[in-house]
């Protein structure tokens, strides 16, 4: 199955690398990139409140961003009421931070599926799109 992926990341180099990696795979049908939490939440909100063709299957979220950082995004995101029986969304925190405190804090949100330390590798992608997604998605 092909997925809709949403990347929330302000660092162009990281986004560039991720695009390159994804190009080598066949996981993604639709890719959306936002440079900070604020524009992400504004754009995603309608697709979260209702199930649409742009509702993401997977979100990669950076922590350090201007205007609205990753933590604030998570707060706003978890407050949005999803339609009943909608497919779960896999939200990954993707950060350079190797501080345990950050990983710990991310795992405390039930909405967060995992914590990936940058740089993202092909193995990371494989785990997300081949194994994790099967656990959460029915189809």
């Amino acid at each position: 199955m092909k997925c809709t992926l949403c990347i929330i990341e302000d660092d162009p180099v990281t986004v560039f690398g991720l695009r390159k990696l994804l190009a080598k795979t066949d996981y993604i049908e639709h890719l959306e990139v936002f440079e900070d939490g604020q524009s992400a939440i504004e754009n995603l909100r309608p697709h979260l409140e209702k199930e649409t063709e742009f509702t993401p299957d997977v979100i990669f979220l950076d922590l350090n961003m201007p205007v609205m950082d990753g933590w604030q995004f998570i707060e706003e995101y978890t407050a949005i009421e999803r339609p009943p029986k909608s497919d779960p969304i896999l939200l990954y925190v993707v950060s350079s931070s190797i501080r345990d405190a950050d990983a710990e804090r991310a795992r405390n949100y039930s909405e967060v599926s995992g914590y990936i330390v940058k740089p993202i590798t092909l193995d990371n992608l494989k785990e997300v799109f081949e194994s994790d997604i099967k656990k959460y998605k029915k189809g």
Partner: protein
Amino acid sequence: MRSPEFSSEYNDSDMHHPPEGASWQWKKKEGLIFSRNLLSDSLNTTALSSLINRIHEEDRPYVQFVANRVTNGQETFALGMRILDAQSSIHDAYVRGQILERDEEGAPVRATGTLELLTNRAQTRTIEEFSRLQRVMVQTHLGFWEWELETGNEWWSASMYELLGYSPADFEITYEKWINDLVHPEDRTRLTAAIDQHIQHHAPYYCTFRMRCKSGEYRWFESRGQAQRDTSGRAVRFLGTSLDVTENQQSKESKQYQEFLKREAARLAKIGIWELDTQNEQVTWSEEVYRIHEVEPGIKIEYLEAANFYVEEDFPTVIESVDAAVNEGKSFEYQARIRTAKGNIRWVRSYGEPVANNGGEVTMLRGVFQDITLQKQRELEIIRQRDTVNAHNERLTSFSHIVSHNLRTHTGNLEMVLKLMQEASADELDTYYSMLHQISKKLSDTIGHLNEITDIQNQRELQLTEVDLEATYNGVLSTLHLNIQQAGASIEGHFSEAPKVRANAAYLESIFHNLISNALKYRKADVSLKLSVRSSYEKDRVQIAFEDNGQGIDLERHGDKIFGLYNTFHRHPEAKGVGLFLTRSQVEAMGGQIRVESVPEKGSIFYVSLLKTTT
């Protein structure tokens, strides 16, 4: 009565046959013969020892004592005793006697006398009173003693024995036994000196000393006595009382101990007591209050004098507290500073409450006064240390954040790009090189920030001098001249109110530069920037306010992060989240504070408060 003074009542004319008694004669060889039978049996006996058995046990020691006296030369005697009849009923008797003849060695050979049975009311009452007295003596912890000075013979009342836990049968008391076995060794010298003073020099005899009880414990006795003297004034006999005062003594000791504890506790805790007579405005201080004020104890103090010890700033608090106590009956507690008589500043805590007379009018204030200088110093020291620790902690967190996050971002990107380059086609390489260029620039930026931050934070002894605000401001404006022109901004500086601060010139310049360029950077697109920089005195600080009409910041959302590291709130290409962090670090390094007020879309005011100049 066995009381010795009765012996002096003896009179020859009494030597007749008493109505309820008999006369007696004693000869050494023939024994004791009574003129008639008493108590329905004969008391006549050849052996005096058998007569002793007819005397009540408790009375025997005194009888023995009088007998010894007679043996040793006393010619007449009279004493009361209880006699048992054949049925062991007790009868009170009064015996008088006179020695008629002695042998060469002075021992009595012949004597005569009377024995009265005390049957009538008056007599019985006397005896009853005596036995009551005996009981009372024990109950009141009182003992009688009598001491024959020449022989060293001594007599004790039964109560005297009982007070020590003995009975008269346990031992026969002598002066030697008393002073050597019973009196506490430490009290002997004092006691014998007191006796000597009385016997030789007629000083009143009064002495408090310890005696050992049968149980081994010592009890305190208060002893009083009077010597009987012969016509030449020589003391012949010494008699008196001893009162058990152990409990008094203990409570006296415990009272002294309590006093000692109170005094020492007050001294250690530096707590004193004060009173203010509201009628004559006279103040009474305990010793400790004088000591806290460094004033000679005992000097008279009036209310206003006392109040004037307080430093100017705290004086009104004191006066208001006292006024409210007098006029409204309110108790008070305040902490304030005094300047002692020696000019030292001390922190004190004073608690006071009004005392009203029957009419409800406050006539006195009373309270507690404590020197809390040391606590205050410690408190301030703890606050200072806590702030230092917090600041250090924050810096460590920022530092570890930079190392764990920002440096890693760049090295991670470097790793990734290099990996991608391995598989890249020739025409893609240019893109990758420009990317590597970007990464390397960001890397050196981050290391630069790291440097700046550690520089500020390692500056232990920052040079603080008197810095002119206007000059600093003008210097910064000239370096930003182009940006200001470009933005079409109008900037004003007002420094006449507080022209100078105590600061580090380089830091102050950096702070001005940062805050003014921030205002330029985050101005509103459609409105030309207006910025005013104004200095003023706020308490013991100089406050510089930077007020703009720019984009503003949503403080409800970002309030706690605005001065944090790598937190940016605008989608501005130059927003790096370092500037305000550095500004705050610099302000704090100079002992100052920075805070912000802001309304989104209206503008911001940054307040920087710094130290006043010392002059």
